């Protein structure tokens, strides 16, 4: 049996776009990933630490063969990535995982918080390409810490930005903004909520979706090693056949139907 298309890529950083002191967008020359990736998928990248780090794909520029990764400083690995410079090499495994399911959807509401606003940007990008009506809710601590607002707006989707500090569209959290949006929004069949961000936020979003009888897809985060399904360290609790069991976040997810997640 011969190996399929390799998914381990030695890539070069094309450019680094600093967003603020804690976040940046790395643009990588990775044509095979750019060609194959779908929203919600991720890559597993080297970062001068022992293990790779899973990072969602934030956008692709298919024609140029580029992918964009939004990075937020958390610990040593992400900090190392934020130090990278154009021309630096990275080893990237991807695209990995089971992304968001857009087929058959007519309207998509993305709800992101923290580094979740990065991968959801790719959802918006594809909705635009496919002509799916799309709205974006993003939650931040404050206007000052907010990121990607212009980029989201630039896609032409309707946006609603929430800030705990009260200095953006909605005072409060992403879920509060979503609640407000859902109250105003005329119902359209084929609407779904896609969310990515801190777990409590996603749980609140899923709860709102349930109450509004909207399907909801959530992108779970678990600590990973291989990212390809062999080591079983990324277990997340999911309900199947009425029973709760562990599934692999990296290959069975990271995106799951909110209904099966055992919060």
């Amino acid at each position, binding site marked *: *049996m*011969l*190996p*399929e*298309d*390799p*998914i*381990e890529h030695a890539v070069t950083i094309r450019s680094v776009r600093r967003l603020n002191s804690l976040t940046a967008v790395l643009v990588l020359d990775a044509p095979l990933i750019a060609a194959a990736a779908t929203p919600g998928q991720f890559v597993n990248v080297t970062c001068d*630490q*022992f*293990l*790779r780090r899973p990072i969602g794909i934030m956008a692709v520029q298919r024609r140029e063969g580029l992918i964009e990764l939004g990075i937020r400083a958390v610990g040593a690995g992400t900090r190392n990535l934020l130090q990278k410079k154009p021309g630096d090499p990275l*080893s990237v*495994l991807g695209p990995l995982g089971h992304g968001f399911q857009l087929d058959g959807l007519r309207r998509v509401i993305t709800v992101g918080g923290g580094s979740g606003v990065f991968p959801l940007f790719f959802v918006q990008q594809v909705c635009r390409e496919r002509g799916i009506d799309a709205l974006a809710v993003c939650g931040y601590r404050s206007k000052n810490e907010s990121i990607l607002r212009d980029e989201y707006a630039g896609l032409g989707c309707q946006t609603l930005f929430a800030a705990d500090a009260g200095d953006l569209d909605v005072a409060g959290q992403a879920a509060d903004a979503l609640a407000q949006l859902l109250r105003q929004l005329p119902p359209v069949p084929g609407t779904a909520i896609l969310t990515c961000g801190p777990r409590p936020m996603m749980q609140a979003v899923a709860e709102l979706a349930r109450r509004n009888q909207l399907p909801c897809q959530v992108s779970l985060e*678990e*600590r*990973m*090693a*291989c990212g*390809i*399904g*062999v*080591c*079983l*360290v*990324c*277990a*997340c*609790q999911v309900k199947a056949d009425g029973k709760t*069991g*562990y599934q692999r976040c990296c*290959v069975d997810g990271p995106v799951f139907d909110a209904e099966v997640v055992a919060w």
Partner: protein
Amino acid sequence: MVKTALQIGSLSLKNPVLAASGTFGFGREMARFQDLSRLGGICSKGLTLHPRAGNPPPRVAETSCGMLNSVGLQNPGLDAFLRDELPFMRQLGCAVIVNVAGHSTDEYCEMCRRLDQTAIDAIELNLSCPNVREGCMLIGSEARQIESLIRQVKLETKKPVWAKLTPNVTSIADMALAAQRGGADAIVLINTLLGMAIDHRTRRPVLGNNTGGLSGPAIKPVALRMVAEVSRLVDLPLIGVGGIMNGQDALEFLVAGASAVEVGTASLIRPAACQDILAEMQALARVDGVDDLAEYRGTLQLWGG
């Protein structure tokens, strides 16, 4: 071409590079990364008689030059393995070694009995998993239990039985000698070191299971020492494992006395690690003017010895 074939007792292997248990699944996902028929063999994820859900997450913590895992033998159970996985593994064209973990002697025996009639190449007795409460490492920490377990298991199967030992013992030599007395066909050294990672802010262990098994290059010096120590006392073939990241590491284990090596954590970082390591071993052998990897085996010359 540098020759690579070898024997582990009655079992012939194409080459000395095996995928270590728990880091290669059942081979399925890895087929994208390398031609698995070129490996010496694959050790399955640790199997138990009944399906096991494994431990609560988080199950991994990064450490300096290593990682802790606390998977806790999540596996579909022996039946599902035989039905869903073995046929796939069998047609890969490399040796299939089944890693077996039990709560009790009875369970180990039952599993070996059922594996005896299957198309597997060897049984690797996991006497060393640090992430489960019963069996495994508890048995593997007492010479008498090792000996008696292997003796009983050997009555149940004609398959080669490899004893995979834990390094978390005062004397690895005593454990290996016990395995030899019990009738093991080979000894696999080492499983992970028991460790812990702590988050000083939350005051919590990082791992949901509190402790986990340390693997990766951090533990290579311990593994090499144990292989060298056991090699001078025991007549069985040894299989070295622990922190092998490249061809040079692998050759060091052969020099220390191993007939073959298993590659674990390296595959989690570079999925094609096994294949690369074999190629690097051959390239280094050419530089050294060695035309058969087996020539390295057990050539370690101690100082002052």
